[in-house]
């Protein structure tokens, strides 16, 4: 597993304690898991995602990520409806390891409470929290 200094947390993204990232795109939110999360999990073998159209509250579990020896729930950073899911992950879950912020995206959400986007962590704050 990598040292904290080797992990990347792009500055243009926002983060939450449960190790998901959020990218705002014209009012919608694209969500995935951070470099720290994929590094902790190890080789990812399966990603379970919800159906398009389903709504979740902030903090609710919306799916799971599995490695060989562990499974982690995925928690919603913000409330809203699922607009898109990354169905490529069904056949190539490993892109979450190799490209967690880009090809490894998981869901796109239409936020029901846009204000929640403001309360998310910055890259620096998230890294600080991981150090502690």
């Amino acid at each position, binding site marked *: 597993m990598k040292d904290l200094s080797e992990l990347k947390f792009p500055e243009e993204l926002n983060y939450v304690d449960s190790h998901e990232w959020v990218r705002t795109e014209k009012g919608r939110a694209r969500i995935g898991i951070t470099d720290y999360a994929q590094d902790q999990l190890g*080789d990812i073998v399966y990603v379970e995602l919800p159906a398009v159209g389903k709504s979740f509250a902030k903090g609710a579990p919306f799916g799971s990520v*599995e490695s*060989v020896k562990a499974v982690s729930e995925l928690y919603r950073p913000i409330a809203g409806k699922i607009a898109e899911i990354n169905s490529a992950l069904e056949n190539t879950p490993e892109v979450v390891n190799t490209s967690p912020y880009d090809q490894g995206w998981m869901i796109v959400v239409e936020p029901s409470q846009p204000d929640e986007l403001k309360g998310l962590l910055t890259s620096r704050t998230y890294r600080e929290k991981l150090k502690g």
Partner: protein
Amino acid sequence: MTVFPGSTGLVLNEPLLWERGRRGRSGFSLPRRDVERREVSPELSGEAPDLPEMSEVDMVRHYIRLSQWNFSVDTGMYPLGSCTMKYNPKTNERQCGRPGFAGAHPLLPEDLCQGALELIAALECCLAEITGLKAVSLQPGAGAQGELTGMLMFHAYHRHQGRPRSKIIVPDSAHGTNPASAALCGYTSVPVPSNASGILSPETVAAVMDEETAGIMVTNPNTIGLFEEHIKTIADIVHAKGGLVYGDGANMNAVLGLADMGRIGVDVLHLNLHKTFSTPHGGGGPGAGPVCVSQPLEPFLPVPRVVVRDGAFRWSEDFPLSIGKLQAFWGNMGVLIRAYSYIMSLGAENLKRVSQLAVLNANYIKARLKGTFHLAYDRPCMHECVFSDKLQQPHKVTTLDIAKRLMDYGFHPPTIYFPLVVPGAIMIEPTETESKETLDLFVESMKAIAAEARDNPEELRQAPTRCTRRRLDETAAARKPCLRG
């Protein structure tokens, strides 16, 4: 120069069953036909299943070769923590193989199976005496099914009291079957942490125990190999709020003849006959997970139960509060016979000695490996001790690497990465059937591996090199599952 057990030798390759064989061959002596052939109607009849056709010699060679790829208790030491891989006595195999037992139909009229019913009654009696509890059911087919039985009994008990409850307290060091069994009954698990000494504190339990909680599941000795010193107080706290105490008896090998589960306040205890009572693990099973219960829980035991009526053994279903049945018949009789034979062969004094020597062996290893590996809890242990890979981390060597290298030395690795409360856990349970010489060889092997971790860590990361296979790609197996040939 120490000679370790691990070695190389000629072990043969062997393909899959269906890669052997040829149409027309057979390994079976078909019985003589003495009745007329009656064709089945074509709509109902199917094709013959696509099963490999092999001669007897090919079938025998296939399995003999496969068996040689396995390490086993009969091959060498298997110090898996919480699994109690003790020697499996061969006389037990002779006993369960007697034609009277092996050929017995479970639904024989009672007068025609008195020998079986008598053994069941006698084993129940033995287990009640050994645990200090009142009544026993031998029906559950494994520890997890015993846990399910216990949870179902909790559920039935509380419903009978008129107050069904929804939560169960489960220590964070518990075996995964504990919360899984509780969930099968609709209970929500309430986790409680162990304290700095590795055991449960009464205050922690008291803080979560309420009238919505059905009870607590406790492993004692716990999964770290420590006796839960406050267990009686904890049982009292749970009972005071109308809850029940479930004992996971997986670690019973440490306290035979010493602890009294009844006095402690356990209401339902499961035993693992394939651990404490010497029945073989079979590469994953079958085992048996009988439950022993206190008086208030007796009415809820699975049915039927063996009773004595008019001087004979009979089945009785006359238990209206029973939870019902867990298996179609009466339990894994073949396993029960082995456990009974073991108990009859040892007797009370030797069973107590089993625990004394199991604990001695574990403490001996702990004393000799302390300093070489990081000891998770530096205090006397029971039948197992827990180390971790903390001292090897500067060399970037993990618990996994240590375990894999131990195979090359000729030992099965200890339990690794469990319990979860110790990161990088290495849990060693030698059991009482290992001699001092074997333990010394094991200790020397571990010390040699620690030295390799320092001087030549790549050797560990490449291990094992002497088994029939090197490390296997588990990621590929999970990403693209290929579950049949």
